[in-house]
């Protein structure tokens, strides 16, 4: 094993030099280090100006997504070891405007998440005094997978459609809409349909499937999108044969 490894890090400071550059840092190599540990070493000991996000360093807060040697990954869950002997190229997630260095602008996602109404919608809410809504483990299985999304944005970074068509609602937001649509406690599918059935909703997706490949939590957004398309199509045809029903 080498003593050190080189990282080529994407640097961009809007009020500074203008064009982004790659800066090379040499850090100690340790078997148990993740890419994030190497970045922290740079920040603490070599260059305090390096900017990136991180928090839980256990793969659940979703802060530290970056592009490492071309792949979108959580840097707190990606060892240095497979990239030896290096150099290892670290860039911000693709598809997002860069604020600075490795920090992307995520406001677009937050706005889209809100648009799909990711909360329980019911015509009547039952008071807590009447206890829980019953939900069997099988009913929970229907949506559980989609509830595991940590909003890390790797799927947006991997999605070729989002890059070309920034209005696309995108994999995570659609998976989260489905998480509620498929929840036995929810009655909001029709309201969400207005957003999902728009051109920039599910129909933008050409089922490339990259989103599900890069997802660190096995959420399978591509599956969520395909399933929604099938359901929406069936619903449309049903509406043609059932009077009084609109898609």
């Amino acid at each position, binding site marked *: 094993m080498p003593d050190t490894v080189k990282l080529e890090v994407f640097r961009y400071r809007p009020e500074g030099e203008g064009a982004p550059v790659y800066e090379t840092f040499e850090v100690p190599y340790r078997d148990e280090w993740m890419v994030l540990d190497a970045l922290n070493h740079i920040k*603490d000991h070599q260059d*305090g100006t390096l900017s990136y*996000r991180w928090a*839980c360093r256990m793969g659940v*807060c979703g802060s530290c997504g970056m592009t490492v040697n071309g792949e979108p990954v959580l840097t707190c869950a990606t060892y240095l070891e497979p990239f030896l002997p290096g150099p290892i190229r670290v860039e911000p997630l693709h598809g997002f405007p860069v604020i600075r260095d490795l*920090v992307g602008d995520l406001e677009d996602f937050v706005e889209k*998440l809100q648009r799909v109404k990711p909360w*329980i919608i019911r015509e009547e809410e039952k008071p807590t005094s009447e206890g829980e809504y019953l939900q*069997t483990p099988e009913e929970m299985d229907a949506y559980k997978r989609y509830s595991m999304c940590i909003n890390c944005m790797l799927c947006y970074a991997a999605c070729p459609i989002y890059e070309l068509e920034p209005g696309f609602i995108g994999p995570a937001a659609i998976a989260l809409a489905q998480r509620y649509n498929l929840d036995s406690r929810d009655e909001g599918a029709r309201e969400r349909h207005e957003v999902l059935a728009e051109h920039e909703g599910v129909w933008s997706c050409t089922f490339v499937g990259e989103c599900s490949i890069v997802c660190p939590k096995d959420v399978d957004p591509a599956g969520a999108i395909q399933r929604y398309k099938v359901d929406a199509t069936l619903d449309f045809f049903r509406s043609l044969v059932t009077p009084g029903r609109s898609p």
Partner: protein
Amino acid sequence: METVHHDVLVIGGGGAGLRAAIAVAEADPRLTVGVASKVYPMRSHTVSAEGGAAAAIRPEDSLDEHAYDTISGGDWLCDQDAVEVFVQEAPEEMLRLEHWGCPWSRNPDGRIATRPFGGMKLERTWYAADKTGFHLLHTLYQTSLRFPSISFHDEWFVVDLLVDEGRCHGAVAIELASGKIVALIARSVVLCTGGGGRVYPFTTNANIKTGDGMAFAYRAGVPLKDMEFVQYHPTGLPFTGILITEATRGEGGWLVNKGGYRYLQDYDLGTPEPGPVKRSMELGPRDRLSQAFVGEEEKGRTVTTQWGEVVHLDIRHLGEKLIDERLPFVRELCRKYQKIDPVRELIPVRPVVHYMMGGVHTDLDGATPVAGLFAAGEVACVSINGANRLGSNSLTELLVFGARAGKRAVQEAEDAPDRPPDAALTQALDLERQIHGNLLRPAEKGERVATIRDEMQASLEAHAGIYREEEGLTTARDKLRELRDRMAGVTLDDTSLTFNTELLHYLEVRNLLDVAEAVVHSALNREESRGSHQRRDFPERDDDRFLAHSLVRRSSEGEPEVELLPVTITRWEPAERVYGK
């Protein structure tokens, strides 16, 4: 300087903050609520909680049982009126979460499932597999998006509170993306910034847990309560400090030393049975289990690894099916971060700093002695956790007291003055000058802020850990004074206004130093051993002198002063803590 006005300002977007914001929105939709958080709310550390949240709902359980477990678990330092409110409101809060969509694990009949947890005599821990905090946080965040009166200032770092003549008028924040300094003016302010585990080097806590709200309150003259009580969780992964949930033991996991021996039986924690026995052995409280580890280490019965001494957590006998169904995250974490599979291998673990029982001194509604200022969640000390928090009480606490603080903040907002005094705005301008004028001015190279942080953490670990004594605590106290002086000589490489994380970290380390000082001074003053605070030089609990909370305040000279406040006893007279019987 730019100012933004809200009726209620919530600082921190984790579980407590979001619950408080929703409580305000539900109580009075005409009031505007601003949530200022240094990270996007779903990044908050609530996300890392694993095992579950306690609320008595089973027919054989009762509120009194939950209260008794909590009070004895806290070594009689809990305020019993607070505990009574807590256990009473817990079930409704948890059900509300269910109605908002939280995917609580279920029994086959569709009802909420519960699991055993440490120090609890009955099964009352609700869980969402072993990602309870994650699901709870995302449910709260997604639900909060429903309310038009709630607006988010994501990635705004609060620098300090604006307090004048005993009333809080808001806070000053940096918008990280632009570096702009903004005065957030509000009629009432709720602090929900979490704990400060990062005063120690080895912790389950996220990088963002820097005790910000505790330091804001402390600097504003609010006392911090019971800061000497720092919880070590007995089972962290040895290199990363990643938490392996107590639910592993609730489901039947064993702790064994290097001889494969279930050593807890030697520490007055009961006798080993094959299956989990509540309030016994591996289901004893966290303080006692972490102390037992030190005992094993001193007897030379721990396992030496490249990451230091460890014991083993054995869950192999639970079987792959149960592990995948109820502990999937544990398996994922072990595989990814420790490169082992707990279905077939032993998990190396050692105690790790996990939670601060102490915090901002509040009453049962989260109100602090400063008018218009409230606190809830780990940042606060109500106190329901006493000298040792029971596992699965903290998620419930942030719901119950987040909601109470939010509701109380609504009343306060209605009574507050219409506009802040000029003095508060002057404070805001001073802070702007300090940051833009001093910290971001290019200067001759001084010390790095990381150096100060590392030395602080090393000192706290060495002298304010599981066992403490006067000599070490005095050393730590002097070290902190030295570090405070050296902070003046720290310079930043980064003078940019755009997303300046070095400036952010400088301000965080300033907060950590305040928290560390409060921990060490309170620990020095408490000459007894109780719960998580174990003094080698005072090994016994001393109810005559210390059946009381520590309140630490910063004096006008800048030095911390500690005084005692008697514990509120309602129905449970102090007694010996008994486990394993």
